[in-house]
């Protein structure tokens, strides 16, 4: 187990370096630069800005300096918001995106797992068909349709909830439901498939033969194995969800990292793009590793293999 962790952590370094390098050169391939405006900028100001950010140096030197600073955790100031450090912008964005993501993931699990279990236990029954049809709808309806629809009904029709912004518990409800709906569907379907497989295993038959009550058989014996697919799914899902959903953040005006990253790319804010991409890569790898560790915990067969 420890060897696995060490091996993975060692792989982080070259992977991050490769991603950093690719991103560094790719953002500079896009036409235009960070200091452009509809109104002409005085030549002296442009020259000074380029000098200030080191953009007047040869590309190789810029790259070297960027790598050196990044290795020391210094991503520099944003080009678009010169008074703010990329590190702070990413940290603030992550905090918000992570909260939104955590609530959504929680809702997805709390609704999805029971729905999947019920569907598996009452296989081919009404509950199964109903919950699977609904989860199909959940996967199929994109956030940019569901979000505005919820806003229309609950914020603009009934005046129950704020239509956007990120202040107070009431403002969390609509974005969390919007973001969670697709995940609810995934979790329910994965749970159902995993449970059906688990319920057909010999150890379940043994448990039943021992005369254990059905709910004990299902929840104690079958569930830990049945939700393994969900755990596998959780690693990348958590990374994606924590990184922020550009669509949900845009609809609800939430100051998360997803919105920052997309805007940074449009603004040619080189340093902010790099910071956000590097963070995303690191988060993805770390959460995948965590999922793998959790997986080993739940299924003893994994460690042996």
């Amino acid at each position: 187990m420890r060897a696995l962790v060490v091996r993975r952590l060692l792989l982080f370094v070259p992977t991050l370096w490769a991603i950093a390098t690719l991103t560094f050169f790719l953002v500079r391939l896009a036409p235009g630069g960070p200091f452009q405006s509809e109104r002409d900028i005085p030549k002296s100001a442009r020259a000074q800005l380029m000098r200030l950010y080191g953009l007047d140096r040869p590309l190789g030197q810029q790259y070297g300096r960027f790598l050196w600073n990044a290795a020391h955790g210094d991503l520099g100031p944003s080009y678009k918001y010169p008074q703010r450090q990329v590190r702070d912008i990413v940290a603030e964005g992550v905090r918000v995106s992570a909260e939104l993501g955590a609530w959504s993931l929680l809702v997805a699990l709390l609704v999805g797992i029971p729905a999947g279990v019920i569907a598996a236990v009452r296989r081919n029954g009404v509950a199964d068909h109903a919950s699977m049809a609904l989860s199909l709808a959940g996967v199929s309806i994109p956030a940019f349709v569901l979000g505005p629809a919820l806003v229309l009904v609950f914020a603009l029709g009934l005046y129950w909830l704020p239509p956007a912004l990120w202040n107070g518990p009431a403002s969390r409800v609509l974005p969390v439901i919007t973001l969670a709906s697709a995940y609810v569907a995934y979790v329910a379907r994965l749970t159902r498939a995993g449970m059906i497989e688990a319920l057909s295993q010999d150890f379940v038959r043994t448990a039943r033969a021992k005369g254990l009550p059905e709910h004990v058989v299902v929840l104690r014996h079958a569930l830990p194995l049945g939700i393994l697919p969900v755990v596998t799914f959780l690693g990348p899902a958590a990374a994606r969800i924590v990184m922020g959903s550009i669509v949900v953040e845009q609809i609800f005006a939430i100051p998360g990292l997803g919105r920052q990253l997309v805007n940074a790319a449009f603004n040619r804010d080189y340093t902010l793009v790099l910071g956000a991409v590097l963070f995303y890569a690191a988060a993805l790898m770390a959460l995948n590793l965590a999922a793998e560790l959790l997986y080993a915990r739940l299924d003893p067969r994994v460690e042996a293999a």
Partner: protein
Amino acid sequence: MRVAWAAALLASVVSACARAPAPGAADARWFGSVTPPRANVLRFNNGAEPETIDPGVMSGQADGRIATLLFEGLTTPDPRTLAPRPGQAYRWEISPDGLVYTFHLRPGLLWSDGEPVTAGDFVYAWRRVLSPVTASRAAGTLYPLANAEAFNRGVLHDSTQVGVRASDDSTLVVTLRTPTAYFLFLTSSFTLLPVPRHAIERGGVAWTEPGRIVVNGPFMLTRHVASEVMDFAKNPRYWDAAHVLLDGVVAYAIDDLNTSTNLYKAGELDWNPSGGIPAPFIPYLRHYADYVTGEFQATYFYGVNTTRKPFDDVHARRALDLAIDREAIARDLLRGTRRAWGRITPDGYAGYTGPAGMRFDPEAARRELALAGFPDGRGFPRFTILFNTSEDHRRIAEAVQEMWRRTLHVPVELENQDWASYMDAVTNLRYAVARRSWIGDYLDPNAFLEPLRSGDGNNRTGWSDPRYDALLRDASHELDASRRFKLLARAESLAVEQAPFLPIYHYSTHELIKPYVRGLYHTALDLHPLTHVWIDRAWRSAPLAAEAASR
């Protein structure tokens, strides 16, 4: 639907702590809730996260709105007409040759930390903007000052040579390079706002953070959550604090237009400024009494790259210009939300009469095309209309493409690019025809004619005409207003005739202002001094017609 069911459940749980249905929601005259905010504050959408709130280095509209809440210049614009009114200066004298302005500051002016505001603060602020080290993108606003341009370009190194000095703590003497008719107006623009030297030297780049920032305007920054919201409280040390009726202001940074309009409808915003309404909503919103529209000093046009063949020939440019049916675009495509426009300067400068402007004339267009050597479009090279990605720009480009094809039989293609790529292409003249727009910085036709001068950084067409430059130069030295306007009108006629810009429409502003917000008006430059805005809780009983009519 599980989702809907879960939503209903969660919603009902939360609704216990959520607000009651807005009573005004059923009133068909108003768009959504008309319940005033609980606190005595104005909540509006600033449209974007300001890049900076340091007035000396900012350049965008979202930044400027914040700057004028926090700082006050020598003058302050009238909330309706934008005419300069006394601000930090209570009176001023102008020398007969129009070159020397002497401003007298009000006695007892204070920064929000209790330090006195002096004429030296203005000198410091203006030199700071012009210093090449500051890299201010808006430094050009100060170029009317003597020696300002040379100092900013690094040709002149002595900042004391720039035409601004403090003859004592309360007297500021400004010397201009040419009489600048609109200079008083400029003294209220964000670039010319004073900044606190002591706070900047103490705080470094972080001097604008809440808790550190020191201001001289009607409001102080109390909270700033990046990309979300800025909170402002009334500044008790502002000289006119007795007449500031709001306790505070809340400025959101919402970039999505649908979201902004939703928040307005739900009663979370009291003002949704122009630019915050999705274009397809406008014809529908026109029927509400809280929808406010008016002329905006901005024009939409196509720039032609005159360094490229065949557009170096004036006849080719005129052919394109005459073949655009602007009326059809404004009426059918934009559903009357904009006015068709055929000249460079917008409408509404008192005393200025511009040329008649280009008209749609297919016959004349074909004649011009023949004069350019392409009778009936034969042999005309394929070219592209470039625009930045936007549904509206695309629809207009498609219409113009069709007009040029049908009238002139020339092969036209369309290309859209994201903003930064598009800006890069336009700035470096890597285009044939490009969508452009221009917004006036000040209320004078010069704001629109200056960019067409030879070599001006905003020209971006390569067009250059010594006659035009001479007319503008003569106008800048002319003290008599009507003679100056005549010179500018002659320059404009020349530019319309030479057609480096193909005008299409005149912008208007479209905003939503709740009926209980008082003192907030449409203005020609879409500037909104918020100093004397107030929330009227008894708005239903007060006569509203006068207020609405004057907006």
